[in-house]
Protein backbone atom coordinates (compact mmCIF):
# COMPACT_ATOMS: atom_id res chain seq x y z
CA UNK A 1 0.00 0.00 0.00
CA UNK A 2 1.36 3.45 -0.93
CA UNK A 3 0.33 6.87 0.16
CA UNK A 4 -0.37 9.74 -2.14
CA UNK A 5 -1.02 13.42 -1.71
CA UNK A 6 -3.95 14.84 -3.64
CA UNK A 7 -3.46 18.51 -4.51
CA UNK A 8 -6.80 19.95 -5.56
CA UNK A 9 -6.74 22.83 -8.02
CA UNK A 10 -9.90 24.76 -8.77
CA UNK A 11 -11.06 28.18 -9.98
CA UNK A 12 -12.57 30.52 -7.34
CA UNK A 13 -16.19 29.97 -6.31
CA UNK A 14 -17.03 33.64 -5.98
CA UNK A 15 -19.74 33.66 -8.64
CA UNK A 16 -21.63 30.65 -7.30
CA UNK A 17 -25.18 31.03 -5.97
CA UNK A 18 -25.85 29.90 -2.39
CA UNK A 19 -27.71 26.86 -3.69
CA UNK A 20 -24.83 25.88 -5.96
CA UNK A 21 -22.41 26.26 -3.05
CA UNK A 22 -24.54 24.04 -0.87
CA UNK A 23 -24.92 21.38 -3.55
CA UNK A 24 -21.18 21.33 -4.18
CA UNK A 25 -20.33 21.34 -0.49
CA UNK A 26 -22.57 18.34 0.09
CA UNK A 27 -21.09 16.47 -2.84
CA UNK A 28 -17.58 17.02 -1.48
CA UNK A 29 -18.68 15.85 1.97
CA UNK A 30 -20.20 12.74 0.42
CA UNK A 31 -17.03 12.11 -1.55
CA UNK A 32 -14.78 12.30 1.53
CA UNK A 33 -17.20 10.02 3.38
CA UNK A 34 -16.97 7.54 0.53
CA UNK A 35 -13.14 7.54 0.59
CA UNK A 36 -13.25 7.01 4.33
CA UNK A 37 -15.70 4.12 4.02
CA UNK A 38 -13.38 2.45 1.55
CA UNK A 39 -10.49 2.87 3.99
CA UNK A 40 -8.63 5.00 1.45
CA UNK A 41 -8.42 8.22 3.44
CA UNK A 42 -5.33 8.63 5.63
CA UNK A 43 -5.97 12.30 6.27
CA UNK A 44 -8.64 14.45 4.71
CA UNK A 45 -6.09 17.26 4.90
CA UNK A 46 -7.04 20.91 4.84
CA UNK A 47 -8.89 23.32 2.58
CA UNK A 48 -6.94 26.36 1.43
CA UNK A 49 -8.32 29.78 0.70
CA UNK A 50 -8.17 31.15 -2.82
CA UNK A 51 -6.98 34.58 -1.82
CA UNK A 52 -4.52 35.68 0.81
CA UNK A 53 -1.65 33.54 -0.49
CA UNK A 54 0.88 33.32 -3.29
CA UNK A 55 4.14 31.90 -4.52
CA UNK A 56 7.40 33.37 -3.22
CA UNK A 57 9.76 33.35 -6.18
CA UNK A 58 13.16 34.33 -4.89
CA UNK A 59 15.31 35.51 -2.01
CA UNK A 60 14.13 39.04 -2.60
CA UNK A 61 10.62 37.89 -1.74
CA UNK A 62 9.06 38.37 -5.16
CA UNK A 63 5.52 37.03 -5.01
CA UNK A 64 3.36 35.77 -7.85
CA UNK A 65 -0.16 34.36 -7.87
CA UNK A 66 0.45 30.73 -8.62
CA UNK A 67 2.96 28.36 -10.07
CA UNK A 68 1.15 28.49 -13.39
CA UNK A 69 -0.05 31.28 -15.61
CA UNK A 70 -3.71 30.92 -14.71
CA UNK A 71 -5.13 31.68 -11.27
CA UNK A 72 -7.52 28.79 -11.59
CA UNK A 73 -4.60 26.48 -11.06
CA UNK A 74 -4.32 27.58 -7.43
CA UNK A 75 -4.25 24.76 -4.87
CA UNK A 76 -7.50 24.83 -2.93
CA UNK A 77 -6.72 21.96 -0.58
CA UNK A 78 -4.87 18.72 -0.07
CA UNK A 79 -5.53 15.23 1.31
CA UNK A 80 -3.47 12.12 1.99
CA UNK A 81 -4.86 8.99 0.37
CA UNK A 82 -3.94 5.29 0.47
CA UNK A 83 -3.88 3.22 -2.70
CA UNK A 84 -2.18 0.11 -4.08
CA UNK A 85 -0.42 1.82 -6.97
CA UNK A 86 -0.57 5.10 -8.87
CA UNK A 87 -3.36 3.59 -11.01
CA UNK A 88 -5.39 2.95 -7.86
CA UNK A 89 -4.89 6.54 -6.73
CA UNK A 90 -5.98 7.77 -10.15
CA UNK A 91 -9.12 5.65 -9.92
CA UNK A 92 -9.94 7.23 -6.54
CA UNK A 93 -9.16 10.77 -7.72
CA UNK A 94 -11.36 10.42 -10.79
CA UNK A 95 -14.47 10.02 -8.61
CA UNK A 96 -13.99 13.50 -7.08
CA UNK A 97 -16.71 16.13 -7.74
CA UNK A 98 -13.96 18.63 -8.65
CA UNK A 99 -14.22 17.65 -12.33
CA UNK A 100 -17.71 19.09 -12.60
CA UNK A 101 -16.31 22.35 -11.29
CA UNK A 102 -13.52 23.03 -13.82
CA UNK A 103 -10.90 21.78 -11.41
CA UNK A 104 -8.39 18.96 -11.40
CA UNK A 105 -6.26 16.94 -8.99
CA UNK A 106 -2.51 16.55 -8.96
CA UNK A 107 -1.66 13.12 -7.53
CA UNK A 108 1.84 12.72 -6.04
CA UNK A 109 3.40 9.67 -4.44
CA UNK A 110 4.78 10.39 -0.96
CA UNK A 111 8.54 9.75 -0.89
CA UNK A 112 9.56 6.97 1.51
CA UNK A 113 12.72 4.93 1.83
Amino acid at each position, binding site marked *: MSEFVFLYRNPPASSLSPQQM*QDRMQRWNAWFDDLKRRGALTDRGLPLQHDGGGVVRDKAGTVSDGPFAETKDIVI*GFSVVRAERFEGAVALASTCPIYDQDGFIEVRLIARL
Partner: protein
Amino acid sequence: MQPDGAFFRRESARLLAALTRIFGVKRSTLAEDVVQETLTAAFEAWRWAGIPEHYSALLMTAAKNRVLDVFRRERTVRKFAPEVSRLIEEEWTMEPSVEELFLPEALRDDELRMMFSCCQPRLKKDAQVALILKNLCGLSVEEIAGAFLDSPAAVEKRLTRAKKALAGSRRLFELTAADFAARLATVHQALYLLFNEGYHSAGADATVRIDMCREALRLVRLLVGHATAATSTTKALAALICLTAARLPGRVDEGGNLRAILQQDRSRWDRSLISEGLELLAESASGVELTAYHVEAAIAGLHASAESADKTSWGEIVSLYDALLTLRPSPVVALNRAIAVAHHKGPARGMDAIRAIRGAGRLSAYPFYPAALGELELRLGRAAAAAGHFEAALRLARNESERRFLRERVTACQAAP
Protein backbone atom coordinates in the same frame (compact mmCIF):
# COMPACT_ATOMS: atom_id res chain seq x y z
CA MET B 1 -30.52 21.92 13.60
CA GLN B 2 -30.29 19.45 10.73
CA PRO B 3 -29.30 21.19 7.50
CA ASP B 4 -31.83 20.58 4.72
CA GLY B 5 -31.56 20.97 0.97
CA ALA B 6 -31.80 24.75 1.03
CA PHE B 7 -30.20 25.96 4.25
CA PHE B 8 -27.44 27.94 2.53
CA ARG B 9 -29.99 29.88 0.52
CA ARG B 10 -32.01 30.67 3.62
CA GLU B 11 -28.97 31.68 5.66
CA SER B 12 -27.85 33.94 2.83
CA ALA B 13 -31.24 35.68 2.90
CA ARG B 14 -31.11 36.16 6.68
CA LEU B 15 -27.59 37.56 6.46
CA LEU B 16 -28.56 39.89 3.64
CA ALA B 17 -31.53 41.24 5.58
CA ALA B 18 -29.35 41.90 8.63
CA LEU B 19 -26.52 43.48 6.66
CA THR B 20 -28.83 45.65 4.58
CA ARG B 21 -30.31 46.87 7.83
CA ILE B 22 -26.83 47.66 9.14
CA PHE B 23 -25.23 49.20 6.06
CA GLY B 24 -28.38 50.88 4.75
CA VAL B 25 -30.42 50.26 1.60
CA LYS B 26 -28.22 52.66 -0.37
CA ARG B 27 -25.29 50.34 0.16
CA SER B 28 -27.02 47.08 -0.61
CA THR B 29 -24.13 46.12 -2.88
CA LEU B 30 -21.75 46.19 0.08
CA ALA B 31 -24.19 44.02 2.02
CA GLU B 32 -24.38 41.59 -0.90
CA ASP B 33 -20.59 41.46 -1.17
CA VAL B 34 -20.13 40.74 2.53
CA VAL B 35 -22.76 37.99 2.37
CA GLN B 36 -21.09 36.43 -0.64
CA GLU B 37 -17.64 36.58 1.03
CA THR B 38 -18.99 35.01 4.21
CA LEU B 39 -20.73 32.20 2.35
CA THR B 40 -17.75 31.55 0.10
CA ALA B 41 -15.43 31.23 3.11
CA ALA B 42 -17.86 28.81 4.77
CA PHE B 43 -18.23 26.87 1.53
CA GLU B 44 -14.45 26.50 1.19
CA ALA B 45 -13.97 25.38 4.79
CA TRP B 46 -17.03 23.12 5.15
CA ARG B 47 -16.36 21.34 1.91
CA TRP B 48 -13.62 19.60 3.92
CA ALA B 49 -14.81 19.72 7.47
CA GLY B 50 -18.46 18.90 6.81
CA ILE B 51 -21.39 21.11 7.75
CA PRO B 52 -21.13 21.90 11.47
CA GLU B 53 -24.10 21.46 13.77
CA HIS B 54 -24.38 25.15 14.63
CA TYR B 55 -23.91 26.38 11.09
CA SER B 56 -26.33 29.25 11.49
CA ALA B 57 -24.61 30.72 14.56
CA LEU B 58 -21.20 30.26 12.94
CA LEU B 59 -22.26 32.08 9.79
CA MET B 60 -23.69 34.91 11.89
CA THR B 61 -20.45 35.22 13.86
CA ALA B 62 -18.38 35.25 10.67
CA ALA B 63 -20.62 37.94 9.18
CA LYS B 64 -20.46 39.94 12.40
CA ASN B 65 -16.67 39.95 12.26
CA ARG B 66 -16.72 41.10 8.68
CA VAL B 67 -19.13 43.89 9.62
CA LEU B 68 -16.76 44.99 12.38
CA ASP B 69 -13.92 45.02 9.83
CA VAL B 70 -15.95 47.19 7.48
CA PHE B 71 -16.84 49.57 10.31
CA ARG B 72 -13.23 49.91 11.46
CA ARG B 73 -12.07 50.46 7.91
CA GLU B 74 -14.77 52.92 6.90
CA ARG B 75 -15.86 54.54 10.14
CA THR B 76 -14.23 57.81 9.29
CA VAL B 77 -15.16 58.00 5.61
CA ARG B 78 -18.63 56.57 5.27
CA LYS B 79 -22.01 57.42 6.63
CA PHE B 80 -24.19 54.68 8.01
CA ALA B 81 -27.81 54.69 9.12
CA PRO B 82 -28.06 57.26 11.98
CA GLU B 83 -28.77 54.75 14.73
CA VAL B 84 -25.96 52.56 13.51
CA SER B 85 -23.51 55.49 13.31
CA ARG B 86 -24.26 56.37 16.89
CA LEU B 87 -23.57 52.83 18.02
CA ILE B 88 -20.24 52.50 16.31
CA GLU B 89 -18.78 55.87 17.22
CA GLU B 90 -16.62 54.42 19.93
CA GLU B 91 -14.51 51.32 19.55
CA TRP B 92 -15.52 50.02 22.98
CA THR B 93 -19.25 50.18 22.26
CA MET B 94 -18.91 48.83 18.77
CA GLU B 95 -18.68 45.10 19.48
CA PRO B 96 -21.60 44.85 21.88
CA SER B 97 -23.65 47.07 19.56
CA VAL B 98 -23.02 44.92 16.54
CA GLU B 99 -23.77 41.92 18.75
CA GLU B 100 -27.22 43.36 19.42
CA LEU B 101 -27.90 43.81 15.73
CA PHE B 102 -27.51 40.05 15.33
CA LEU B 103 -29.86 38.89 18.09
CA PRO B 104 -32.53 36.41 16.92
CA GLU B 105 -35.43 38.86 17.35
CA ALA B 106 -33.51 41.54 15.48
CA LEU B 107 -32.82 39.11 12.67
CA ARG B 108 -36.47 38.09 12.42
CA ASP B 109 -37.51 41.73 12.28
CA ASP B 110 -34.87 42.37 9.62
CA GLU B 111 -36.39 39.67 7.46
CA LEU B 112 -39.83 41.16 7.87
CA ARG B 113 -38.50 44.63 7.09
CA MET B 114 -36.83 43.24 4.01
CA MET B 115 -40.12 41.67 2.96
CA PHE B 116 -41.97 44.95 3.35
CA SER B 117 -39.18 46.83 1.56
CA CYS B 118 -39.35 44.51 -1.43
CA CYS B 119 -43.08 45.18 -1.63
CA GLN B 120 -42.73 48.87 -2.39
CA PRO B 121 -46.16 49.74 -3.82
CA ARG B 122 -44.57 51.69 -6.68
CA LEU B 123 -42.77 48.61 -7.96
CA LYS B 124 -44.47 46.32 -10.44
CA LYS B 125 -45.73 42.99 -9.15
CA ASP B 126 -43.17 40.92 -11.04
CA ALA B 127 -40.38 43.17 -9.76
CA GLN B 128 -41.59 42.71 -6.18
CA VAL B 129 -41.63 38.95 -6.54
CA ALA B 130 -38.22 38.93 -8.22
CA LEU B 131 -36.83 40.99 -5.32
CA ILE B 132 -38.37 38.63 -2.77
CA LEU B 133 -36.85 35.66 -4.55
CA LYS B 134 -33.46 37.36 -4.65
CA ASN B 135 -33.36 38.98 -1.21
CA LEU B 136 -35.52 36.72 0.94
CA CYS B 137 -35.12 33.36 -0.72
CA GLY B 138 -31.47 33.74 -1.73
CA LEU B 139 -32.05 32.67 -5.34
CA SER B 140 -29.56 33.71 -8.00
CA VAL B 141 -30.55 35.61 -11.14
CA GLU B 142 -30.27 32.39 -13.17
CA GLU B 143 -32.49 30.51 -10.73
CA ILE B 144 -35.13 33.25 -10.82
CA ALA B 145 -34.98 33.27 -14.61
CA GLY B 146 -35.58 29.52 -14.53
CA ALA B 147 -38.64 29.98 -12.36
CA PHE B 148 -40.17 32.67 -14.54
CA LEU B 149 -39.11 31.16 -17.88
CA ASP B 150 -37.36 34.43 -18.51
CA SER B 151 -33.87 35.24 -19.74
CA PRO B 152 -31.27 35.97 -17.02
CA ALA B 153 -30.61 39.31 -18.72
CA ALA B 154 -34.27 40.31 -18.39
CA VAL B 155 -34.36 39.32 -14.71
CA GLU B 156 -31.09 41.15 -14.07
CA LYS B 157 -32.53 44.28 -15.64
CA ARG B 158 -35.74 44.04 -13.63
CA LEU B 159 -33.77 43.61 -10.39
CA THR B 160 -31.37 46.48 -11.11
CA ARG B 161 -34.26 48.81 -11.82
CA ALA B 162 -36.10 47.69 -8.69
CA LYS B 163 -33.01 48.11 -6.51
CA LYS B 164 -32.47 51.58 -7.86
CA ALA B 165 -36.06 52.45 -6.92
CA LEU B 166 -35.49 51.05 -3.43
CA ALA B 167 -32.25 52.97 -2.91
CA GLY B 168 -34.06 56.13 -3.98
CA SER B 169 -36.62 55.95 -1.21
CA ARG B 170 -35.16 57.21 2.00
CA ARG B 171 -37.03 55.54 4.81
CA LEU B 172 -37.28 52.02 3.51
CA PHE B 173 -35.88 50.12 6.42
CA GLU B 174 -37.41 52.44 8.97
CA LEU B 175 -41.02 51.67 8.19
CA THR B 176 -43.45 53.14 10.69
CA ALA B 177 -46.43 51.22 12.01
CA ALA B 178 -48.65 53.12 9.55
CA ASP B 179 -46.48 52.16 6.56
CA PHE B 180 -46.53 48.62 7.82
CA ALA B 181 -50.33 48.36 7.78
CA ALA B 182 -50.65 50.10 4.42
CA ARG B 183 -48.10 47.85 2.82
CA LEU B 184 -49.41 44.60 4.22
CA ALA B 185 -51.87 44.17 1.33
CA THR B 186 -49.02 44.44 -1.18
CA VAL B 187 -47.02 41.88 0.79
CA HIS B 188 -50.02 39.52 0.70
CA GLN B 189 -50.33 39.91 -3.06
CA ALA B 190 -46.64 39.27 -3.61
CA LEU B 191 -46.67 36.12 -1.45
CA TYR B 192 -49.84 34.92 -3.18
CA LEU B 193 -48.18 35.44 -6.53
CA LEU B 194 -44.97 33.77 -5.34
CA PHE B 195 -46.94 30.71 -4.26
CA ASN B 196 -49.05 30.55 -7.42
CA GLU B 197 -46.00 31.01 -9.63
CA GLY B 198 -44.52 28.02 -7.89
CA TYR B 199 -47.70 25.96 -7.90
CA HIS B 200 -48.96 26.61 -11.40
CA SER B 201 -46.22 28.10 -13.56
CA ALA B 202 -45.91 25.96 -16.63
CA GLY B 203 -42.72 24.30 -17.67
CA ALA B 204 -40.33 25.73 -15.09
CA ASP B 205 -37.92 23.45 -13.27
CA ALA B 206 -39.94 21.40 -10.78
CA THR B 207 -37.50 21.71 -7.88
CA VAL B 208 -37.34 25.49 -8.19
CA ARG B 209 -41.13 25.62 -8.22
CA ILE B 210 -41.53 23.50 -5.11
CA ASP B 211 -38.91 25.73 -3.47
CA MET B 212 -41.01 28.78 -4.35
CA CYS B 213 -44.04 27.21 -2.70
CA ARG B 214 -42.00 26.36 0.41
CA GLU B 215 -40.60 29.88 0.57
CA ALA B 216 -44.07 31.42 0.30
CA LEU B 217 -45.09 29.15 3.17
CA ARG B 218 -42.05 30.15 5.27
CA LEU B 219 -42.57 33.87 4.66
CA VAL B 220 -46.29 33.80 5.36
CA ARG B 221 -45.57 31.94 8.61
CA LEU B 222 -43.16 34.73 9.49
CA LEU B 223 -46.05 37.18 9.07
CA VAL B 224 -48.37 35.02 11.17
CA GLY B 225 -45.76 35.04 13.93
CA HIS B 226 -45.61 38.82 14.07
CA ALA B 227 -48.08 40.69 16.28
CA THR B 228 -48.88 43.55 13.88
CA ALA B 229 -48.79 41.52 10.69
CA ALA B 230 -50.96 38.63 11.90
CA THR B 231 -54.28 40.05 10.74
CA SER B 232 -57.27 37.95 9.80
CA THR B 233 -56.33 38.37 6.12
CA THR B 234 -52.76 37.23 6.80
CA LYS B 235 -54.16 34.13 8.47
CA ALA B 236 -56.52 33.50 5.55
CA LEU B 237 -53.62 33.71 3.12
CA ALA B 238 -51.53 31.45 5.33
CA ALA B 239 -54.41 28.97 5.50
CA LEU B 240 -54.76 29.03 1.71
CA ILE B 241 -51.04 28.42 1.21
CA CYS B 242 -50.92 25.60 3.81
CA LEU B 243 -54.01 23.84 2.46
CA THR B 244 -52.89 24.07 -1.16
CA ALA B 245 -49.27 23.16 -0.41
CA ALA B 246 -50.58 20.10 1.44
CA ARG B 247 -51.71 18.70 -1.91
CA LEU B 248 -48.30 19.13 -3.59
CA PRO B 249 -47.17 15.53 -2.89
CA GLY B 250 -50.30 14.19 -4.60
CA ARG B 251 -50.11 16.43 -7.63
CA VAL B 252 -47.63 14.25 -9.43
CA ASP B 253 -47.90 10.45 -9.19
CA GLU B 254 -45.05 7.91 -8.98
CA GLY B 255 -44.75 7.90 -12.74
CA GLY B 256 -44.22 11.67 -12.80
CA ASN B 257 -47.71 12.26 -14.25
CA LEU B 258 -49.80 15.29 -13.40
CA ARG B 259 -52.92 14.33 -11.45
CA ALA B 260 -56.09 16.43 -11.30
CA ILE B 261 -57.32 17.01 -7.76
CA LEU B 262 -60.11 14.43 -8.02
CA GLN B 263 -57.77 11.67 -9.18
CA GLN B 264 -55.11 12.35 -6.58
CA ASP B 265 -54.13 9.78 -4.00
CA ARG B 266 -55.30 11.64 -0.90
CA SER B 267 -53.19 9.53 1.41
CA ARG B 268 -50.20 11.39 -0.01
CA TRP B 269 -51.50 14.76 1.11
CA ASP B 270 -49.59 16.38 3.96
CA ARG B 271 -51.75 15.90 7.09
CA SER B 272 -49.82 18.30 9.31
CA LEU B 273 -50.10 21.10 6.75
CA ILE B 274 -53.82 20.40 6.45
CA SER B 275 -54.37 20.71 10.19
CA GLU B 276 -52.20 23.83 10.36
CA GLY B 277 -54.23 25.28 7.48
CA LEU B 278 -57.60 24.40 8.98
CA GLU B 279 -56.59 25.95 12.28
CA LEU B 280 -55.49 29.15 10.53
CA LEU B 281 -58.71 29.14 8.53
CA ALA B 282 -60.76 28.99 11.73
CA GLU B 283 -58.71 31.85 13.23
CA SER B 284 -59.06 33.92 10.06
CA ALA B 285 -62.83 33.95 10.49
CA SER B 286 -62.55 36.02 13.69
CA GLY B 287 -62.22 39.38 11.94
CA VAL B 288 -64.74 41.42 10.00
CA GLU B 289 -62.73 41.21 6.79
CA LEU B 290 -63.78 38.89 4.01
CA THR B 291 -61.22 38.75 1.24
CA ALA B 292 -60.72 36.49 -1.75
CA TYR B 293 -58.02 34.74 0.33
CA HIS B 294 -60.66 33.82 2.91
CA VAL B 295 -62.90 32.31 0.26
CA GLU B 296 -60.13 30.52 -1.59
CA ALA B 297 -58.85 29.12 1.70
CA ALA B 298 -62.35 27.91 2.55
CA ILE B 299 -62.57 26.11 -0.82
CA ALA B 300 -59.14 24.55 -0.29
CA GLY B 301 -60.27 23.59 3.22
CA LEU B 302 -63.32 21.70 1.89
CA HIS B 303 -61.18 19.80 -0.58
CA ALA B 304 -58.61 19.00 2.08
CA SER B 305 -61.15 17.74 4.59
CA ALA B 306 -63.09 15.59 2.12
CA GLU B 307 -62.36 11.88 2.57
CA SER B 308 -62.70 11.28 -1.16
CA ALA B 309 -63.62 13.16 -4.32
CA ASP B 310 -67.21 11.84 -4.11
CA LYS B 311 -67.63 12.98 -0.54
CA THR B 312 -66.64 16.59 -1.28
CA SER B 313 -69.30 19.17 -0.32
CA TRP B 314 -69.78 20.40 -3.88
CA GLY B 315 -72.81 22.51 -2.99
CA GLU B 316 -70.79 24.54 -0.52
CA ILE B 317 -67.94 24.83 -2.99
CA VAL B 318 -70.32 26.25 -5.63
CA SER B 319 -71.56 28.91 -3.18
CA LEU B 320 -67.98 29.80 -2.26
CA TYR B 321 -67.14 30.21 -5.93
CA ASP B 322 -70.17 32.50 -6.23
CA ALA B 323 -68.70 34.62 -3.44
CA LEU B 324 -65.28 34.56 -5.08
CA LEU B 325 -66.78 35.70 -8.37
CA THR B 326 -68.10 38.85 -6.71
CA LEU B 327 -64.80 39.49 -4.88
CA ARG B 328 -62.50 38.70 -7.76
CA PRO B 329 -64.36 38.14 -11.02
CA SER B 330 -62.37 36.21 -13.61
CA PRO B 331 -63.17 33.64 -16.29
CA VAL B 332 -60.85 31.11 -14.61
CA VAL B 333 -62.82 31.41 -11.36
CA ALA B 334 -66.05 31.03 -13.38
CA LEU B 335 -64.65 27.92 -15.05
CA ASN B 336 -63.76 26.38 -11.70
CA ARG B 337 -67.24 27.22 -10.49
CA ALA B 338 -68.74 25.48 -13.53
CA ILE B 339 -66.69 22.36 -12.79
CA ALA B 340 -68.01 22.39 -9.22
CA VAL B 341 -71.56 22.79 -10.58
CA ALA B 342 -71.01 19.72 -12.77
CA HIS B 343 -70.00 17.69 -9.71
CA HIS B 344 -72.92 19.00 -7.72
CA LYS B 345 -75.75 18.94 -10.25
CA GLY B 346 -74.44 16.78 -13.07
CA PRO B 347 -72.50 17.32 -16.29
CA ALA B 348 -75.40 18.88 -18.25
CA ARG B 349 -75.76 21.69 -15.70
CA GLY B 350 -71.99 22.08 -15.67
CA MET B 351 -72.05 22.48 -19.43
CA ASP B 352 -74.68 25.24 -19.10
CA ALA B 353 -72.50 26.98 -16.54
CA ILE B 354 -69.49 26.85 -18.85
CA ARG B 355 -71.52 28.31 -21.73
CA ALA B 356 -72.65 31.12 -19.43
CA ILE B 357 -69.09 32.23 -18.57
CA ARG B 358 -68.67 35.88 -19.34
CA GLY B 359 -65.43 36.82 -21.06
CA ALA B 360 -64.76 33.20 -22.03
CA GLY B 361 -62.75 34.56 -24.95
CA ARG B 362 -59.97 35.24 -22.47
CA LEU B 363 -59.74 31.50 -21.86
CA SER B 364 -58.93 30.75 -25.50
CA ALA B 365 -55.29 29.94 -24.73
CA TYR B 366 -56.03 28.13 -21.47
CA PRO B 367 -55.75 24.36 -22.04
CA PHE B 368 -58.00 23.50 -19.11
CA TYR B 369 -60.96 25.25 -20.73
CA PRO B 370 -61.34 22.74 -23.58
CA ALA B 371 -60.19 20.03 -21.15
CA ALA B 372 -63.15 20.85 -18.86
CA LEU B 373 -65.51 20.63 -21.84
CA GLY B 374 -63.93 17.29 -22.73
CA GLU B 375 -64.46 15.89 -19.21
CA LEU B 376 -68.14 16.86 -19.27
CA GLU B 377 -68.77 15.50 -22.77
CA LEU B 378 -67.13 12.27 -21.70
CA ARG B 379 -69.40 12.05 -18.67
CA LEU B 380 -72.39 12.73 -20.94
CA GLY B 381 -71.34 9.71 -23.01
CA ARG B 382 -70.29 11.68 -26.08
CA ALA B 383 -66.79 10.28 -26.40
CA ALA B 384 -66.07 11.57 -29.91
CA ALA B 385 -66.90 15.17 -28.97
CA ALA B 386 -64.86 14.76 -25.79
CA ALA B 387 -61.83 13.54 -27.73
CA GLY B 388 -62.09 16.63 -29.97
CA HIS B 389 -61.96 18.93 -26.94
CA PHE B 390 -58.99 17.10 -25.42
CA GLU B 391 -57.14 17.32 -28.73
CA ALA B 392 -57.78 21.06 -28.77
CA ALA B 393 -56.47 21.25 -25.20
CA LEU B 394 -53.41 19.25 -26.23
CA ARG B 395 -52.57 21.88 -28.84
CA LEU B 396 -52.64 24.54 -26.10
CA ALA B 397 -50.62 22.56 -23.55
CA ARG B 398 -47.68 24.51 -22.15
CA ASN B 399 -45.35 21.78 -21.05
CA GLU B 400 -44.61 18.09 -21.22
CA SER B 401 -46.52 17.08 -18.10
CA GLU B 402 -49.67 18.84 -19.35
CA ARG B 403 -49.25 17.17 -22.74
CA ARG B 404 -48.83 13.75 -21.14
CA PHE B 405 -51.92 14.31 -18.99
CA LEU B 406 -54.05 15.41 -21.96
CA ARG B 407 -52.83 12.62 -24.22
CA GLU B 408 -53.96 10.18 -21.58
CA ARG B 409 -57.41 11.80 -21.59
CA VAL B 410 -57.62 11.46 -25.39
CA THR B 411 -56.81 7.77 -25.02
CA ALA B 412 -59.49 7.44 -22.33
CA CYS B 413 -62.04 8.83 -24.82
CA GLN B 414 -61.00 6.34 -27.47
CA ALA B 415 -61.40 3.50 -24.96
CA ALA B 416 -64.88 4.72 -23.93
CA PRO B 417 -67.85 2.86 -25.50
